[in-house]
């Protein structure tokens, strides 16, 4: 996108395939289309299986599905007989739809990105005791790789985990902790922040489980005064806010990102 100046003149109403003229045309940010190799070509790749036997009809069914999605000129690049009456398709098609990029709004973390030194300095400025952080994989989830990457000293991606910070006292409850046990522990530990990891997402169990935690916390009078953070490959800050959390982190999050948010949220919570 960098090679295109970002002005917002009236965009073309049709999808041009050739004849772009001299030099790159400017991107119309009010009408952005998918990009293959030419601005506004709308090229997209789709990959899916259909529960119909491999045949010419199966390919046409795939193309028809694309047309119903509003895609133009669907072309089956690859079709494979999966057997048992299933067909796999890779389809390229052109998408004429546009989005108004100037109107896009995404909730973002209300926190500066600090490094470990910055996190510890901010803490030292405002607090004399350690910030107590309680972590767990809740519900049936047995995958502790995410919470461990954030909390364990070893950390992730070359960054030490929160246990290594002198400003945090970390308790990691590990896998398969129920919401009520987590909150009991939070009360006993006088947690400042609760970090919940959810890796298993089948049938959206992570969403119901996370929402149930906040409901329970509210019922137990443990919502206010504690910073709630969730993380997992299928989570985002926007989803976290929707579920009643203070922040959410997705795949690839490093410990300092979480530490930055937690220290600022806890310090802010303690301001009069």
């Amino acid at each position, binding site marked *: 996108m960098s090679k295109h100046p970002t002005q917002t003149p009236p965009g073309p109403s049709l999808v041009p395939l050739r004849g772009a003229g001299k030099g790159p045309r400017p991107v119309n940010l009010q009408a952005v289309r998918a990009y293959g190799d030419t601005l506004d070509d709308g090229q997209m790749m789709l990959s899916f299986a259909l529960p119909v036997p491999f045949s010419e009809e199966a390919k046409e069914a795939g193309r028809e599905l694309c047309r119903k999605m509003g895609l133009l000129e669907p072309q089956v690049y690859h079709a494979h007989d999966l*057997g048992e009456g299933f067909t*796999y398709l890779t389809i390229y098609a052109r998408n004429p739809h546009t989005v108004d990029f100037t109107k896009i709004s995404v909730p973002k973390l209300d926190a500066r990105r600090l490094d470990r030194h910055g996190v510890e300095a901010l803490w030292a400025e405002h607090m004399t005791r350690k910030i107590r952080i309680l972590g767990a994989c809740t519900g049936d989830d*047995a995958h502790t790789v995410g919470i461990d990457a954030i909390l364990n000293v070893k950390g992730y991606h070359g960054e030490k985990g929160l246990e290594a910070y002198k400003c945090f006292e970390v308790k990691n409850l590990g896998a398969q902790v129920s919401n009520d046990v987590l909150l009991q522990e939070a009360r006993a530990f006088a947690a400042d922040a609760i970090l919940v990891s959810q890796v*298993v997402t089948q049938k959206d*169990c992570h969403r119901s489980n996370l929402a149930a935690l906040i409901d329970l916390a509210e019922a137990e009078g443990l919502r206010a005064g504690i910073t709630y953070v969730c993380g997992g490959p299928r989570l985002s800050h926007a989803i976290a806010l929707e579920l009643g959390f203070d922040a959410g982190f997705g795949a690839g999050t490093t410990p300092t990102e979480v530490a930055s948010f937690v220290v600022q949220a806890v310090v802010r919570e303690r301001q009069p």
Partner: protein
Amino acid sequence: MSVVCTAFPVAPGFDCPSLALDSAQVARGRALARKIAKEVQQFTEVRSTVAIERTVLRLFGVEGATDGEVPLCNVCVDQLQVAGRLTAGIAQPFCAAMLATGLQPTELALEVAAGRLDLASFAGPHAPDPAVLQLGRTLANGGLDRIAAQRQQRDAFQARLGCGVQPLRYVIVASGNIYEDVVQARVAARQGADIIAVIRSTGQSLLDYVPEGATTEGFGGTFATQDNFRLMRAALDEVGEELGRYIRLCNYASGLCMPEIACMGAFERLDMMLNDALYGILFRDINMQRTLCDQRVSRRLSALAGLVINTGEDNYLTTADAIEAAHTVVASTLINEALARAAGLETGQLGLGHAMEVNPLIENSLSYELAQAMLIRTLFPGAPLKFMPPTKHMTGNVMRGHVQDAMFNLVGVATGQGIQLLGMATEAMHTPHMHDRYWALESANLIFAGGRALGSELAIKAGGSIEKRAQATLTEALGLLEEIAAEGLMTALSRGHFADIKRSPDGGRGQDGVFERAENYWDPSEALLSERLIAAQQLHADGSAHDPYAGGAA
């Protein structure tokens, strides 16, 4: 040694490059592992668990659950435990009650469930009388015969359809619904899968009972039940017959019901079981006394059934660093081997696990992976090693993930791995879609065919980085084994030697189900099973383990 091909050819299906290792170190490592295993065996031989007692009832033929879905085996064992009479075992009171009532095993269990029969009232203070002894032996032999018959049937299938070519292509299904799983599995078989593993619903390892019936709801996987085993077995037999290949079925004999699930899997002709002596302790916080007792019985049954066990050392590297912790994998495979041998498992049944988890973005990551894969391969000649794909460094970048999996496939075929758990490009994002599995199998088919002879053509440079790395890892593993052998496995586990995880001997789930055997403890299946394993030359005549690798690496 038995010469019958039960599950795998004794030799790998192809050559792999040879790796020079210090044979004195290898022999020392094995001796230490045997010492560690012996101590564990002495500990477990004088104990039993609720899961082991339930397994005795399953061998007797008790099946089914109450209307409230409590398995009848649990009802009986729990009743006796609450009465404080379980330490002599379930077998004596159960058989005595059968003789007194004239009921069949499941009928008797139903009476117990209905509250009309108190097993404790049949618990004698002394050794069982002759009629009870005879009934117990007859019932136990009935269960063991069922298992032996399934092994014969597998042998017959494989004699007709072949054992497959290693590395065997292993894929998972995990829809949560056994009927969807069957569709996914049949499709995978048609794409080339040799092994279908049905991933269990998350949390099942912590259930102290095995659910009943065909199940259609699960999270991250499908419940392991005997009915689900049967449905999948039938589907794979059918599609395998059509394809002219024997499709193996894998599940999990792990968690709090380890021996029971091994037994049920053996009844339904499963071919492989995830079964690790340490995994549940480390990763599921199951009490170590419980798991060490349970693993012994589950492995003895697997030995009889001709089941291949898959150990879980690969998981160490998902929490610890793959380069720094490589030696813990080596140490643990040696311990798992020694414990498995003590249970009568043969070389062809040792699917010892290891993984490709070095950060793929570091320079020469492939050299590290080759060194590790060849080290494990060289330590266990002929064993169908289970090689696990990248998981920790899978990110949702499916294209890069597919390439990482392709490199893994190349290392697997070039180093002669036995069981290749095919990586999924969408790992870390969702349980596999039907076409994720197709991508994985297509990649494996291509690379295995193309790389089939690579291992026999390549030589590892003497004194080069791969050889040095492998030797250094072995030396480090030996150091760890010395420590563990000196302090005992339980202390070692409590000090966090594996996967950076510390567990205490009295902590974790399921300890209340462990008990020391009373003097009059009796489990008729134990001696009968030993007799059969000795007769099959899977154990020495005195019940001790065979040691085919004696004298160092072959």
